[in-house]
């Protein structure tokens, strides 16, 4: 399971590296960092603090989930924002948001199938809702950031 998650970490990084960037390097980095903080907090609260989902007690499972929360999820946010801003019709935005959340949700299903995690007092649909909101959060950060930069008149 670690190899599969590692492959996807590499794949997401490669996709992000080669995709056309529509926002500046600084903004891409800021989005990555902020979404990393959100991802870390979500995982900590659900897995470690409230133990609503239990991580299997192996180092491999733990490291695999670290890869997911630290790289895959925030990179997905970067890939998402760079796709969204190229195709900006409202319908396509909704479609890409829901589709992107399905992609991330598939990793949760993969982790469950691979025995990395087991749900305790948790409804899996909440994971999907979280990923939808997570991607929407990326958009909010983008517009908030742009409003600050435009106010300062220093767009790169």
């Amino acid at each position: 399971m670690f190899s599969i998650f590692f492959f996807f970490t590499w794949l997401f990084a490669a996709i992000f590296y080669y995709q056309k960037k529509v926002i500046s390097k600084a903004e891409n980095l800021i989005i990555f960092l902020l979404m990393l903080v959100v991802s870390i907090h979500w995982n900590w609260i659900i897995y470690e603090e409230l133990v609503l989902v239990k991580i299997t007690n192996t180092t491999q499972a733990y490291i695999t989930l670290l890869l997911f929360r630290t790289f895959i999820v925030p990179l997905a946010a970067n890939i998402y924002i760079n796709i969204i801003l190229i195709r900006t019709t409202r319908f396509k935005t909704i479609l890409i948001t829901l589709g992107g959340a399905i992609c991330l949700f598939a990793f949760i299903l993969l982790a469950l199938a691979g025995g990395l995690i087991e749900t305790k007092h948790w409804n899996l649909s909440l994971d999907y809702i979280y990923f939808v909101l997570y991607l929407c959060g990326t958009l909010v950060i983008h517009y908030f950031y742009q409003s600050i930069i435009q106010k300062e008149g220093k767009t790169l």
Partner: protein
Amino acid sequence: MKIIGTFDMNEIALLIFVGVTYAIMVILPKKLSTELTILSLVWGFTVGVLFDFTIGGGKLDYYKVNDVNHYELFDFVYYMLFVPFGYCFNYFYEVLRIRGAISILYIVVWAGIGIGAQYVFSALHIITLQNGFKLVYSVPIFLIIQTLTALLYGYIKKAEQKSKADGEN
């Protein structure tokens, strides 16, 4: 998960540190571009959170922040303390015009400031090292973080200059 543990010396010390460091950040004249300023603030905060939740919690759990191993409000205040550090690193990098080999000395000095801060935090029980972790083990962590910060500064600064040059042409 607790909102707040016992309110004693470590919480008071944290509030004083946050007050002083944020005041310094506000007082310093603006030298960095808006993008670099935002990036410096976010970078400091994120690095703190990333390391704390990776080696300071979970399976490794090398240190405890504040009174309990669980997440509480003042843990967040502690992470806020990383923001001025990230900002000041890049601010003085710009103001002192650090370039080339001097960067090595600059990074070592900041790693020293980091270790010194961690020593003070340990003495004030803001953090408690545990599970065999020693202060000296933080040296490689600080060296890596400060080096990455310097590289990041150079990377974004170069992008800014390129963008400015493209805009003028």
